């Protein structure tokens, strides 16, 4: 029917634009209680006493519980799902009992008849603390005088991990003509999905079944963790639903304490319970992103050939290990150090350290933007130091389009790409040559105009389960997909992927409509409910189309095969001679399309079962599990132009060009929008966003009054282009599209700002590139230019 490849309007939109989105916070149940959590105001403190008496006596309070109550009833510790060799995993209780290890660490919980009463009662809980010295800097956790935060994590270092060819790396550096050295900070970020996290739970006292609604990107893994590790309710009596979820960006992947506390209370007091985070609470409880300190070196030949990189990173894990935290700075980070380039000598190491800050885990891009930031900053500085154009230096080192599949020295095998083509397109849209000559002209009149370039690669669509297991994962990363054809010919598509803005209800319907040759309107896509889709792994790592979509394609194939069998039987032909017409949705004998059996008739026949081939089961309901053969490797060429006010240090983004290769595209409008959103989010990191902790572990940017989110007026219209090199190893030929915008724009804009400052001799500044930071740098070099101001006459 030709849905795939066209910009179909989203089928989910009518409910959202009319205020009918079904978010967790909207759920109201009879006899519901409302929860509020007492949280530590200290970054690090011993808890000596918790007095809940006054809170319990407050009118309208139903119950107050502490961590000890949970432990006494057998609640298990919060699990870590990624175990690299020799890892030391800190003990994390849903409510801490001995010490608070970050501001916001939960200590007690109130259940009340109204949320306002719960908020009042939380203030009546009296906790006695013995404040302890804190550490917030990833590189200072082993310093003299820094206390051990967890008894079982020696030197506050949870793990060390390295990857690469050390010998080749050393050789590259010993034979280098030029070496670039950089110390980089990739700052702490707060995800700030617009919907704060929430959890609702209902216990059925009679059947002993629990239903949990949670703002998760992956309800099926949450059910597994709740069942096997924390709450202990058997999976077959536990239903987890993630209905409409208002954005995730990684922060809603993880198993959170409130997902344990809420159902535990619902069962304990036999009343439905609801917890909804305030924004400020999200700031100190949602797992945060990035926070690396890195020493990076790049070896080059004098002609610009990149021969190696050597990277050491201290990754701040926060006060506990969040669910997938160890994955992010290891297998999602060092594996990307080859970038788009043919260099051989790649080696990296990481130290995962524990600090008195909110836990850190995946945040849009998750390890891969950190890697791109390191590599693409090094390349840019190298180009500057070698006197080469940054596009030319990159082109010189690209892996050629005929060299795929390409094995990198850091474990990955890139599937496909044409890096020259993406740069051809980006430089053409930008009119790069003119951009540079305009920049020269602007510079000659004292203006600080910068052009930034980035060329990024991403490993998306995690992951072959065996590979994930070998790298430390406790779970597999397949996806399940069901194509359920009803007797009337209507189709329900059930997927273990989860949409929290991506638009799966549209794109997956497009895929199946084309696979079966039916109308999109006859298809309903269902996700996010373990009661309907018991098995799945959810959405993150830009995996939904490549992994979830592929599972559905497999199920559609099974449906087609079954329909061919039924049609062959009815048309008295052999199955081998049957043709499934995917354009028209009918089956016929090769050479006789006029005698076709339409989809609807065959679907009905599958259920009427009056005339089925011998041995064929009735029904038309096919399930597949798809385990990807490899990651997919989206890649991009981005170009940004900025201008800096030399007097104030303010940065103005004047142009932004993005050309991405995300393989085949199912819905161009949606893919483009993913890139646009990603660009803004990456720009946020480059210019404004930062989670700032003081030395005691206080988060100084805990509300949206301090944490600067990107706003509409900060951006020009983005100029987007596309190159498609299909991924050869999944049936749709797709690659991930959700994260590349962020991965590429962060470093692209940083490079543009540094390019603007280059004539002043400023080599590197850490993000966020705030006006003050830039002004300080300009002042320090003592070459502050005077702004060109249009003065009035009469001078």
């Amino acid at each position: 029917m030709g849905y795939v490849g066209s910009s179909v309007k989203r089928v989910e939109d009518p409910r959202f634009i009319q205020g009918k989105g079904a978010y967790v916070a909207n759920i109201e149940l009879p006899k519901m209680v409302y929860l509020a959590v007492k949280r530590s105001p200290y970054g690090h403190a011993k808890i000596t006493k918790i007095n809940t008496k006054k809170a319990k006596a407050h009118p309208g309070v139903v119950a107050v519980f502490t961590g000890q109550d949970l432990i006494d009833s057998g609640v298990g510790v919060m699990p870590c799902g990624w175990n690299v060799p020799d890892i030391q995993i800190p003990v994390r209780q849903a409510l801490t009992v001995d010490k608070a290890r970050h501001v916001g660490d939960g200590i007690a919980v109130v259940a009340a008849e109204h949320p306002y009463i719960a908020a009042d009662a939380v203030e009546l809980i009296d906790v006695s603390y013995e404040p302890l010295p804190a550490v917030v800097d990833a590189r200072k956790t082993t310093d003299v005088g820094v206390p051990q935060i967890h008894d079982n994590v020696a030197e506050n270092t949870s793990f060390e991990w390295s990857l690469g060819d050390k010998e080749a790396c050393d050789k590259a550096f010993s034979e280098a003509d030029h070496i670039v050295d950089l110390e980089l900070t990739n700052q702490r970020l707060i995800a700030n999905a617009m919907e704060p996290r929430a959890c609702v739970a209902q216990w059925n006292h009679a059947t002993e079944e629990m239903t949990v609604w949670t703002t998760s990107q992956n309800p099926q893994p949450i059910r597994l963790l709740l069942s096997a590790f924390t709450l202990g309710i058997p999976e077959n009596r536990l239903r987890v639903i993630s209905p409409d979820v208002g954005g995730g960006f990684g922060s809603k992947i993880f198993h959170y304490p409130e997902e344990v506390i809420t159902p535990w209370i619902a069962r304990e007091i036999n009343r439905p319970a609801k917890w909804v985070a305030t924004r400020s609470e999200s700031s100190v409880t949602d797992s945060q992103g990035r926070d690396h300190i890195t020493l990076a070196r790049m070896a080059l030949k004098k002609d610009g050939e990149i021969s190696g990189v050597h990277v050491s990173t201290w990754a701040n894990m926060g006060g506990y290990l969040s669910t997938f935290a160890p994955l992010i700075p290891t297998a999602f980070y060092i594996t990307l150090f080859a970038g788009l380039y043919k260099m051989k000598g790649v080696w990296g190491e990481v130290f995962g350290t524990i600090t008195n800050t909110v836990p850190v885990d995946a945040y849009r891009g998750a390890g891969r933007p950190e890697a791109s930031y390191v590599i693409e900053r090094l390349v840019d500085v190298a180009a500057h130091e070698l006197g080469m154009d940054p596009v030319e230096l990159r082109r010189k080192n690209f892996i050629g389009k005929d060299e795929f599949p390409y094995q990198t020295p850091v474990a990955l095998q890139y599937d496909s790409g044409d890096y020259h083509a993406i740069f051809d397109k980006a430089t053409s849209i930008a009119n790069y040559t003119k951009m540079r000559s305009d920049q020269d002209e602007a510079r000659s009149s004292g203006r600080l105009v910068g052009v930034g370039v980035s060329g990024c690669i991403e490993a998306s669509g995690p992951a072959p389960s065996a590979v994930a297991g070998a790298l430390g994962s406790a779970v597999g990363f397949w996806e399940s997909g069901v194509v359920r054809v009803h007797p009337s010919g209507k189709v329900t598509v059930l997927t273990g992927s989860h949409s929290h803005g991506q638009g799966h209800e549209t794109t997956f319907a497009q895929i199946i409509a084309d696979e079966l040759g039916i109308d999109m309107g006859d298809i309903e896509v269902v996700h996010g409910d373990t009661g309907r889709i018991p098995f799945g792994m959810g959405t993150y790592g830009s995996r939904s189309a490549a992994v979830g979509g592929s599972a559905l394609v497999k199920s559609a194939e099974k449906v087609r095969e079954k329909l061919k069998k039924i049609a062959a039987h009815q048309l008295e032909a052999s199955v081998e001679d049957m043709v499934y017409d995917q354009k028209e949705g009918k089956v016929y004998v090769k050479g006789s399309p006029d005698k076709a059996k339409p989809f609807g008739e065959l679907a009905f026949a599958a259920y009427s079962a009056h005339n089925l081939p011998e041995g064929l089961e009735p029904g038309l309901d096919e399930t597949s599990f798809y385990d990807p053969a490899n990651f997919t490797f989206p890649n991009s060429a981005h170009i940004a132009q900025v201008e800096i006010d030399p007097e104030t240090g303010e940065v103005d983004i004047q142009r932004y060009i993005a050309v991405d290769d995300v393989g085949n595209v199912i819905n161009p409008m949606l893919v483009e929008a993913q890139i646009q959103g990603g660009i803004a989010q990456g720009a946020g990191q480059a210019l404004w966003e930062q989670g700032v902790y003081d030395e005691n572990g206080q988060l100084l940017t805990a509300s949206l009054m301090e944490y600067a989110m990107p706003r509409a007026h900060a951006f020009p219209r983005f100029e987007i282009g596309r190159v498609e090199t299909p991924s050869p190893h999944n049936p749709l030929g797709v690659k991930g599209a959700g994260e590349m915008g962020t991965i590429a724009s962060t470093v692209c804009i940083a490079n543009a700002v540094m390019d603007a400052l280059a004539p002043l001799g400023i080599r590197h500044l850490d993000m966020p590139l705030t006006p003050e930071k830039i002004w300080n740098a300009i002042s320090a070099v003592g070459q502050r230019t005077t702004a060109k101001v249009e003065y009035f006459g009469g001078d």
Partner: protein
Amino acid sequence: MKLPVSIAVNGSATSSEVEPRLLLVHYLRDVLGLTGTNVGCDTSQCGSCTVLIDGEAVKSCTVLAVQADGSDITTIEGLAQDGELHPIQQAFWDNHGLQCGFCTPGMILTATEILKKNPRADEHEVRHGLEGNICRCTGYENIVKSIVAAQSAKPAKKRASKKGAA
């Protein structure tokens, strides 16, 4: 202390006894069950909770229900008329002006205000008009596109009948 309030919401009279501290957004969501108005922050920054009070866009997390007593409120649920989407709603759908949908009701209601103040707002003016609304998904591009596109559509029927109270 509990006080009686009477508030017209989307053309229907509502009334209740409320604590003075009850925020308008919670009156709408919890008392009336109109959950289309979302709460995205606690510091009047994100604009997700935007509704129209007597025709003017306001952040309902920063208004007490008692302050809105006697006023006429439009929420996202009341924008479509007789089963027909408001032109701005339609434009958001046509131009993919939303992803997760959480900020969308606030964006759409703010857009009505931007276009009311300036029916010919250009892209730059629309971007500045959105100063009080945060979206994490879209990068704003398609939101801006939607609002600019909505201008060519017919203006919505005016619902608010009275002048502002404050």
